[in-house]
């Protein structure tokens, strides 16, 4: 009789499939990694609901798994910051960018050993959408900046999109 290994947790499976297994393997204690990630998602999901009501994105392990089947690169990019971002609103913002929101304004106020304040205003690409403003005073949240797409259009600056780095691959 052959003993079968237990089926892998679906959330863990997409994390590993996305090349982000380090999120689990580097966490101490390792067996608490998935509960912690679920807690982070639940907090961000609640913040999204509180801020955006019915327009809020669904941030659950199940929704990430569903999106992974559609756009794995987006889920990879999100997972790369989920363990580093400190402010739940910023995770909501990242997902809103991945959904297609434009980055209308980004203000950064930083003074070494004194001040960090990041304010991002997102604008809907559709005429009927409202702007959304996200704020952070925790420099850990600056990790999102390196994932933003950078471009010039008519020689004018634009941040747009949120992309995966090569971490863990």
């Amino acid at each position, binding site marked *: 009789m052959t003993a079968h290994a237990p089926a892998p947790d679906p959330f863990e499976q997409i994390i590993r499939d996305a090349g982000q297994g380090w999120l689990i393997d580097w966490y101490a204690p390792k067996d608490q990694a998935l509960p912690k990630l679920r807690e982070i998602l639940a907090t961000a999901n609640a913040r999204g609901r509180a801020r955006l009501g019915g327009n809020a994105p669904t941030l659950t392990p199940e929704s990430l798994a569903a999106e992974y089947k559609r756009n794995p*690169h987006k889920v990879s990019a999100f997972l790369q910051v989920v363990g580093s971002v400190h402010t739940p609103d910023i995770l909501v913002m990242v997902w809103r960018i991945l959904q297609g929101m434009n980055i209308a304004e980004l203000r950064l106020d930083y003074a070494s050993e004194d001040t960090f304040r990041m304010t991002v205003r997102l604008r809907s690409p559709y005429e009927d959408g409202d702007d959304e403003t996200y704020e952070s005073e925790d420099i850990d949240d600056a990790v999102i900046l390196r994932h933003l797409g950078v471009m010039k259009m008519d020689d004018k600056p*634009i941040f747009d999109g949120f*992309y995966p780095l090569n971490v863990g691959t």
Partner: protein
Amino acid sequence: MIGGTDIILKARDERAAMDMAIRVIRLAWEHAVFEDADTGQTFRSYSDIDLRGRPEILVYRDAQAQRDWKEIGPDPAVNATMIHLIGRRGELTIGLDDVPGKPILSIVDIIQRSLRTRPELFAGTVREAA
């Protein structure tokens, strides 16, 4: 491929590179419409597009451009109204008209420059094929 000029970019992650290209085009063409070149499925908004298993996306300037392409096909009358993106085997190919106009070339230039800011997406090699 439209039958014109192809610009072939080496991409480390062709799906993410195609995503970036789509977003650039969407900024240039506010009312862009997206179509799976293999199935004909149309996406009215960026958020509806699932790129897994969709290696070829046609991006039309707007819904009228999509209708025009369906009716008359590749013709000078529809120049500069559609860009064909193909993401396969570590390459992102941008298919253009026979004689791409300045607005289209400007969009392609922005795509290339944007990708160059992301070494994890873009491998740096560019070639053109007629």
